[in-house]
């Protein structure tokens, strides 16, 4: 197992804040919008430098999505920011009609996704957002895994013409990807080479997959770990190349099993190369209040759970 170490920990939302502050300097058409969550989305640096390019919409997310669509008419690149729950479920029809169907160059940037939002509980812990967004034609869906990858993804989406859903989170987690990385939309990152099992992981579960890979390696099982940061368009080539080598796979995500990354992987395998697949994700249930660590453990989104699923899927080969 390739060694991954970290010297610092940060939240992925801060990676977004750093990324958009940098975009402010390089992309004069980038506009930041928020619905009363400027602090939570780490927009302070952008607002300080570019106050005229910041639009405070107040607690009115539907309007923010429509205003964002309108801003693109005139050449602006709006980054509409709020919590993932309010950035998707609350405004699905606005995104569907005014942004996705109209193919507007809006970047929907969603923080506090998933269980790791923690104590606020299930009202805010959206676990369906990737599924909703990936079903929309024209929409690109990205779920980066650490501070550096989130910053790089934020910068990359400004140059991609078309609607994007960028999902990140609140907890402070290890920074294990390089600061100088070039983020390529739709191109999976090969975390570790192995031949016993494929692990397809995204978001906060990538670090868990690395820890799982180390545990497995100690037991003589070398996992092929692939970070699918872009849920759509999916890097089908990387998925198939890996499973053709390993013969089985586990998906790992902080999302509902229905409609998530695992679902996408299953479709690719069913159509091209049927192979056993097990899932690490949330099974048709809402979350609850608790610390992020407690919740990830209770709902089975941990390195231990990945190891367990690897054993299960390898037995099915």
């Amino acid at each position: 197992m390739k060694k991954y170490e970290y010297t610092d920990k940060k939240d992925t939302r801060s990676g977004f804040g750093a990324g958009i502050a940098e975009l402010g300097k390089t992309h004069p058409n980038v506009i930041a919008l928020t619905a009363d969550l400027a602090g939570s989305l780490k927009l302070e640096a952008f607002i300080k430098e570019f106050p005229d390019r910041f639009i405070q919409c107040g607690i009115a997310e539907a309007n923010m999505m429509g205003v964002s669509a309108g801003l693109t008419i005139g050449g602006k690149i709006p980054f509409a920011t709020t919590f993932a729950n309010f950035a998707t479920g609350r405004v699905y029809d606005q995104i569907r009609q005014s942004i996705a169907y109209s193919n507007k160059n809006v970047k929907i940037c969603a923080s506090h996704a998933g269980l790791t939002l923690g104590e606020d509980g299930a009202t805010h812990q959206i676990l369906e957002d990737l599924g909703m967004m990936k079903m929309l034609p024209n929409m690109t869906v990205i779920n980066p895994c650490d501070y550096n990858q989130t910053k790089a993804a934020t910068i990359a989406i400004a140059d991609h013409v078309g609607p994007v859903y960028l999902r990140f989170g609140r907890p402070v987690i290890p920074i294990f990807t390089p600061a100088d990385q070039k983020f390529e939309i739709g191109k999976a990152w090969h975390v570790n080479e192995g031949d016993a099992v494929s692990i397809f992981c995204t978001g906060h579960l990538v670090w868990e997959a690395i820890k799982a890979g180390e545990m497995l390696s100690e037991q003589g099982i070398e996992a092929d770990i692939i970070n699918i940061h872009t849920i759509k368009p999916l890097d089908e080539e990387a998925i198939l190349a890996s499973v053709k080598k390993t013969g089985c796979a586990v998906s790992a995500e902080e999302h509902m099993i229905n409609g998530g990354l695992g679902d996408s992987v299953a479709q690719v395998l069913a159509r091209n190369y049927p192979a056993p697949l097990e899932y690490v994700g949330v099974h048709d249930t809402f979350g609850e209040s608790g610390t992020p660590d407690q919740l990830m453990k209770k709902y089975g989104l941990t390195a231990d759970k990945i190891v367990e699923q690897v054993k299960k899927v390898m037995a099915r080969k």
Partner: protein
Amino acid sequence: MELEKLEGIATAVRRDILRMVAAVNSGHPGGSLGCTDFFVALYFDIMRRKTDENGNPIFDMDGRDEDLFFLSNGHISPVWYSVLARAGYFPLEELGTFRKLDSRLQGHPATAEHIPGVRIASGSLGQGLSVASGAAYAKKLNGDDKHVYVLMGDGEQQEGQIWEAAQFAPNKKLGNLTAIIDLNHAQIDGTTNNVNDNRDLGAKYRAFGWFVEEMNGNDMAEVIRTLRKAQENPDVPTLILMHTEMGFGVDYMVGNYKWHGTAPNADQLQQALNGLPLSVGTTDY
């Protein structure tokens, strides 16, 4: 453009609307006919639109340095398509493809087929005021002094998002935005008063910080006068309560909400067309 000419175009547009919806036995003639005079005034007199040396419109998605129009109540697409075609955005005969397979003229306006003149999809109600506010905001950021217009239905005022946008636009000082409500008091299930009373829309918008005007939307001269005045507020958006009659121009449709989304049959179509003779210089599609 002189009034008589505008009214001649309006008659031709009304004939288009009726023939378009009758041809596919679907679509929304009532609101389209009621808003015809407004659309003709807007496109043939009010809006400063980009054109080439021959006077033909130039369309690009960004729409910089020209006035923009957004249709929020997308179901009245027939009147918009007809006016866009007659203003030269696409061939008049294309109106014959309305609501048919592989057409650029979708039942509700859309951008996916790249029809010139349309910049956003609409149909699911309540979204246009937000989009127009964004476009008006972009114009201000770009130092573009042109104006943005958006038409909404009165039934549509029941959507919550309208009021999010109604609060946003005055707070952002979008004086380059004029919103028009087609006040025909009719929606699918009956009169707006009976379905879910909007009460005093003027008072509501005034309280939200808008400059509120009223006009008779079926009086071409009054429409032009009122729309001109709306361009003169640098920091305050204007809301125009446009009184119209659903089905205006077709005697048996006037004021009857049943014609919101029903097409006339062959006999009804002929009867309607007989009452709308083409004036000199205009032809059917």
